[in-house]
């Protein structure tokens, strides 16, 4: 479990990115950390991974401070960053020299994931394309079988079939003692796999709700007009308005993640107010 309490952080002493930020992420869930470019998503992930030191406040990863970088805490998560560099060795050698650091590493699954992504194991990692490297890291990260998997913009550089493989693998790898955090600004890419939406805007958590809560309170519809007072947010389209509507009659609808996200980051968001 990840627990962030009163986190204050800025890259410069006088510039504050996070001010008294609180967040709790629980096992058995896939969190979608959404936000525009520059909203602080990567910085938040780095705080969780102990790569940055808070100015004040605490970050706890299963009751341990990740900034202490003990082997125990480091072995409890795997981070797939957006930008990475791979060494000039092949897949097998990388596996030989890196997998032993992760006690629960599942070699068989690793090769299965690579096969699914159609990655040539004989190829040197530094000779792979950006997308291939990403698929390799996703496979390694999932096979590491750590309680927490942190992914930063995992679908960047993936082709359309690979994005769907990624979604399939993530959904199948989740268990009740695991926690996945997927940070992205490409909201559509993770639709259908996340079960909690966390939205970060200007360094603040403006929304943190499980999909069941969202379904209970909101409905996603296409409307001809938006005169209804229950319409909380709407975007004009060719066939009418894509709208987020107050769910007054326990109506079930497919959650349009992109529309939800836009409704949350809209100025004076009525959707956010609906949950407060």
């Amino acid at each position, binding site marked *: 479990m990840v627990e962030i309490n009163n986190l204050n952080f800025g890259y410069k002493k006088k510039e504050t990115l996070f001010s008294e930020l609180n967040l709790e992420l629980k096992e058995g869930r896939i969190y979608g950390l959404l936000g525009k470019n520059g909203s602080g998503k990567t910085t938040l992930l780095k705080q969780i991974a102990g790569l940055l030191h808070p100015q004040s406040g605490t970050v706890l990863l299963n009751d341990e401070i990740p900034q202490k*970088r003990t082997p*125990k805490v480091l072995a409890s998560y795997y981070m797939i960053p957006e930008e990475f*560099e791979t060494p000039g060795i092949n897949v097998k050698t990388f596996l030989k020299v890196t997998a032993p650091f992760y006690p629960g590493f599942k070699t068989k699954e690793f090769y299965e994931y690579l096969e699914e992504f159609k990655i040539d194991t004989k190829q040197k990692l530094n000779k792979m394309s950006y997308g291939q490297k990403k698929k390799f890291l996703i496979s390694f990260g999932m096979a590491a079988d750590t309680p927490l998997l942190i992914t930063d913009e995992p679908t960047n550089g993936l082709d359309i079939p690979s994005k769907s493989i990624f979604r399939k693998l993530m959904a199948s790898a989740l268990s009740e003692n695991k926690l996945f955090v997927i940070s992205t600004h490409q909201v559509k890419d993770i639709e259908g796999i996340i079960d909690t939406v966390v939205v970060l805007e200007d360094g603040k958590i403006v929304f943190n709700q499980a999909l069941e809560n969202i379904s209970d309170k909101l409905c996603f519809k296409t409307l001809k007009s938006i005169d209804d007072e229950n319409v909380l947010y709407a975007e004009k389209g060719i066939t009418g308005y894509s709208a987020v509507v107050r769910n007054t009659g326990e109506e079930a609808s497919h959650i349009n993640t992109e529309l939800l996200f836009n409704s949350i980051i809209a100025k004076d968001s009525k959707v956010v107010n609906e949950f407060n």
Partner: protein
Amino acid sequence: MENIKSFSFKRILLLMQKTLYENAKSVSIGLITVFGFFSFILIMSALKDAGAWDKLQAFYYVGLFIAGFFISGMAFSNFRNKEKTMSWLTLPASISEKLISEWLLTTIIYIIAYSAIFYAFNLIVFLIGDVFNFEVNFINIFTKETLILFLHYIIIQSILLAGAATFKKVPLFFTISSLFIIGLIISFYLTILALGIKGQFEVFQFNGNGIQSNNFNYDLQNHWLIKVPKIMYYYVTAPVFWIYTYFKIKEKEA
């Protein structure tokens, strides 16, 4: 997750293995360069004097320090770029294990590998000499003096290791520049010291036991002004820089 020890020798070995595999190209180039260095010295000396190999022990020492400093400058190479720093810092091993693995590679393993190459070369020359009937003595490096030189290497290397963990770009250059400045400060200190003793300005040099110039030799061997820096050098320098390096790694961000 519960049974992960905070310190493990196995992890240190794994870290060294990972570093060697991932830097296999640089390591191979380094080994070839050292072998080439000895070949060059041998050929040059053979052109001058066929029996000169026996005198080449000095080159072993020079090469040990020069190559060792280059290798030490390359320690913590992951810190040269943000992405590599990130993956290195998140690799499940403690800070002390990461420091020890880099230290072992750039001191003990390096000295063993360097000496092994020297001995291999020594053996080849010895065998060639045997075949072509010219006398070549097998050089024994492991004398008391060599062990003291290893100690000096380890002490000075601790400063370079600290530099490698501190400076993001061209650490060897910045560390050597820093050492040069420190050297100047020490020289200045000694000059002032001698000035105070003799009462006039002169160009002095420090010979390990005292201060010397053309017409002046002041033995300070038992003086605290020499004793304290000596103790500091032998017993304090390396531990201080190792601790400094540890905290540099600890505070590193990516």
